[in-house]
């Protein structure tokens, strides 16, 4: 409770939390408000918004309900963003911990691999990965995680380098603990806070990357995505600009919300650290 109040200390954090909460509600209630296939035809094509109250945001080029697509798109964006960020943080934390704790050749090898991934433009990497394996939600998540794990790996390694010199690691060695157990049970949990601080940036980037892949037609074709909606609307940009603007604004607000909420979390933990 106290932590939550400290988190909601700044107006930015409140705005971020509000946007994220709204997004979450949209994602969770999508099958409730809009049961059935959001990609099914619901009315006449290119119905403008606010004309028919059973289709509040109108329909797109094929007569699909824009509001239903928006709700179901929130599901995809959120699922892909969170899953990709979780995977990237997991890979990064494990690689960074192994590199920092083992040192020597293992460190060199792992960090050169990290360098290699970091020098390839991340979007290009995701694009290549999806075009080779084929577009499905799992592959998109893997592709985004593959290009986002290097940041967490570097941060985790730097943190582990300082933690491994602490007495608690010496103490664990003295009682005969296996090095792998020391790395993942004693060191990694204590190295996590600065790594987790990266999560908002990674989630935001993952949502944008997913949208960009969908815009290029490399998203999962069986799911509604905001990127795909923007791409659909592009053909009628002059006559029905709202078809691109609505999902575009949703995308922008989501990324903004994730950033703001992330800032709020970092701020509130920074306060706690300086107090203790």
């Amino acid at each position, binding site marked *: 409770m106290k932590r939550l109040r400290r988190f909601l200390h700044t107006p930015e954090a409140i705005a971020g939390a509000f946007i994220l909460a709204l997004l979450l509600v949209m994602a969770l209630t999508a099958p409730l408000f809009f049961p059935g296939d959001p990609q099914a035809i619901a009315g006449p094509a290119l119905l403008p918004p606010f004309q028919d109250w059973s289709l509040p945001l109108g329909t797109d080029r094929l007569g699909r309900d824009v509001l239903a697509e928006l709700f179901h798109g929130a599901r995809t964006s959120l699922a892909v963003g969170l899953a990709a960020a979780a995977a990237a943080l997991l890979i990064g934390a494990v690689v960074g911990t192994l590199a920092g704790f083992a040192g020597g050749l293992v460190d060199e090898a792992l960090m050169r691999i990290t360098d290699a991934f970091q020098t390839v433009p991340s979007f290009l990497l995701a694009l290549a990965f999806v075009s080779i394996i084929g577009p499905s939600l799992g592959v998109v998540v893997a592709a985004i995680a593959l290009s986002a794990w290097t940041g967490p790996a570097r941060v985790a390694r730097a943190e582990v380098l300082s933690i491994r010199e*602490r*007495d*608690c690691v*010496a*103490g*664990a*060695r*003295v*009682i*005969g*603990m*296996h090095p792998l157990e020391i790395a993942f*049970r*004693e060191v990694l*949990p*204590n190295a996590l806070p600065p790594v987790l601080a990266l999560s908002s940036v990674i989630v935001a980037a993952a949502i944008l990357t997913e949208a960009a892949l969908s815009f290029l037609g490399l998203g999962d074709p069986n799911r509604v995505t905001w990127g795909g909606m923007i791409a659909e609307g592009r053909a009628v940009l002059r006559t029905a600009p709202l078809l691109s603007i609505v999902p575009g604004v949703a995308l922008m607000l989501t990324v903004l919300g994730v950033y703001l909420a992330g800032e709020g979390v970092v701020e509130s933990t920074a306060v706690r650290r300086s107090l203790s």
Partner: protein
Amino acid sequence: MSVLAVTNLTKRYHRGGKPFAAVDEVSFDVGPAETLALAGPSGSGKSTIARLVLRLIEPDAGRIDFEGANFLALSGAALRARRARLQMVFQDPLAAFNPRATVARVLDDPLRIHGIAPRSERPHRIAALLERVGLDTGLAARAIHEISGGQRQRVAIARAIATRPSLIVLDEAVSALDVSVRGQILELLLDLQRQERIAYLFISHDLGVIRAVADRVVILDAGRIAESGDARAVIADPQSAVGKALVAAMPKLIRNRP
């Protein structure tokens, strides 16, 4: 036969490009149930010796024999298994434990790692260890950062004796404690030594404490042994310049102690 025999131990570091010996050809031994104190000013190499003896860092030269076998020849699983017999208590018990751990976990680890007790039996063992060091068994569920410094150092001692070691290295183990708690911890250590026949390598800069607990003392200066001998005799009449300086720095209250 001695529990620990250290022969010509040497550790060099580079400081500003020039090599210097933090520990320079140091030899000593510790007998069963004996307390050998390592004394010396800051930077004299006493903590480096502690870390060398525990194989937390590797020496550049010299030999360490523990319980009659070459301790430096061990590696991997054999070394980890041997560590059960050679334990350490650190100066700052808060830094020496995982800050997220509970008292029970800290004591459970050595019992689990060395297969001393099956899982179902370990809570009883942990309670027994806590009682052995004079702590309430209810403390087991508490987090390490929730208990007092004196209690924490008692937990550290409980963890050290959990694997029934023959030698415990105490690196400034009572230096960070306030005077009343320090006395209780020293009494606990002496009591454990009498009952379990544990030898101590007692590292301290405080000759008052050393005179109270140690049988013999080795005084170090800049990585070399300046003098050594019976603790009381050396402290009563130091021969080396470092020894005289350390004795001169003792608080005068010490005179009232036995």
